[in-house]
């Protein structure tokens, strides 16, 4: 029986003695613009998704959208994230990747030590997820491809998408309703199962 300690340590709220601190884990939620990343995080997060900002490093400062070279050190990249307290010992953070691909330095930071990634895909715009898939393949980070069923509809079926993206057969491809907590939870479970299989295969 799995013991559930879901009654938060409320009774001991006045105690400031650090007992065992929770262990933070994180999952990256990636995908193209408007593929449903923030919706996914929002559906399962126990907090309203927050936004945190990081300064752009000099290396990533380039040509901005207005066509001008930006060298301002104040340029920032914003990330949305949510949190799930799973137990007294586990806090799971979900970090959405910044929209533009030019923020690769931030992807590196997000991926470092992560459980894995959920790649959200709008099947009407498959090409938008290529960059994310290439990135996680190259980094050898476990990921699940999640086809967002906008209004319950998939523009292509799962096998077609798998073929079109030429994804490794071991990588799970699932249909997800990003607005539904149960559906996002299943996608996370798939990801962790996949990460476990990968770990085991590595020996």
């Amino acid at each position, binding site marked *: 029986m799995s013991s559930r300690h879901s009654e938060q340590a409320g009774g001991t709220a006045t105690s400031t003695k650090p007992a065992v601190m*929770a262990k933070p884990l994180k999952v990256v939620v990636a995908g193209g613009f408007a593929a449903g990343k923030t919706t996914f995080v929002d559906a399962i997060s126990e907090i309203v998704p927050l936004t945190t900002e990081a300064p752009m490093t000099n290396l990533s400062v380039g040509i901005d959208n207005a066509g001008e070279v930006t060298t301002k050190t104040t340029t920032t990249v914003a990330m949305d994230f949510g949190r*799930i307290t799973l137990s007294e010992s586990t806090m799971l953070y979900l970090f959405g990747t910044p929209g533009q691909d030019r923020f690769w330095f931030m992807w590196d930071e997000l991926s470092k030590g992560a459980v894995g990634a959920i790649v959200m895909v709008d099947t009407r715009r498959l090409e938008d997820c290529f960059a994310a898939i290439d990135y996680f393949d190259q980094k050898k980070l476990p990921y699940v491809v999640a086809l967002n069923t906008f209004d319950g509809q998939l523009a292509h079926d799962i096998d077609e998408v798998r073929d079109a993206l030429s994804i490794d057969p071991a990588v799970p491809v699932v249909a997800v309703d990003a607005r539904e907590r149960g559906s996002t939870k299943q996608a996370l*479970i798939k990801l962790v199962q996949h990460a476990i299989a990968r770990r085991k295969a590595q020996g």
Partner: protein
Amino acid sequence: MNDATPAPRFVRQFALVKGRARSVGTDLALEALVRTTDHGLERRPALGRDQQRVIELCQESISIAEIGAHLHVHLGIVRVLVSDMVAHNLVALSSSDFDETGPDLRTLERLLDELETL
């Protein structure tokens, strides 16, 4: 003049951490958890405004990313602020016992159990 609305913050972010842009030796992960120590609670009245905010926010463990979101400062600043506070034993950091390649098998299996019962 009416002082009802708080004055906007004109202080440059780097002024908050006394001009240092790089954190002191540590590169805290976005998800690293921070918690106020007993010492931090005691010292709170003597601390600066941002350190006091961190002391308040971290009475329950929260991540570096959350501190940044609540203080409206970027992650570089939070890292310096928190590293300093750790050095002075005002806050404690969660230990992460996994490396850059991700959590180990035992941690993943526990995560799976916990997600399934969520």
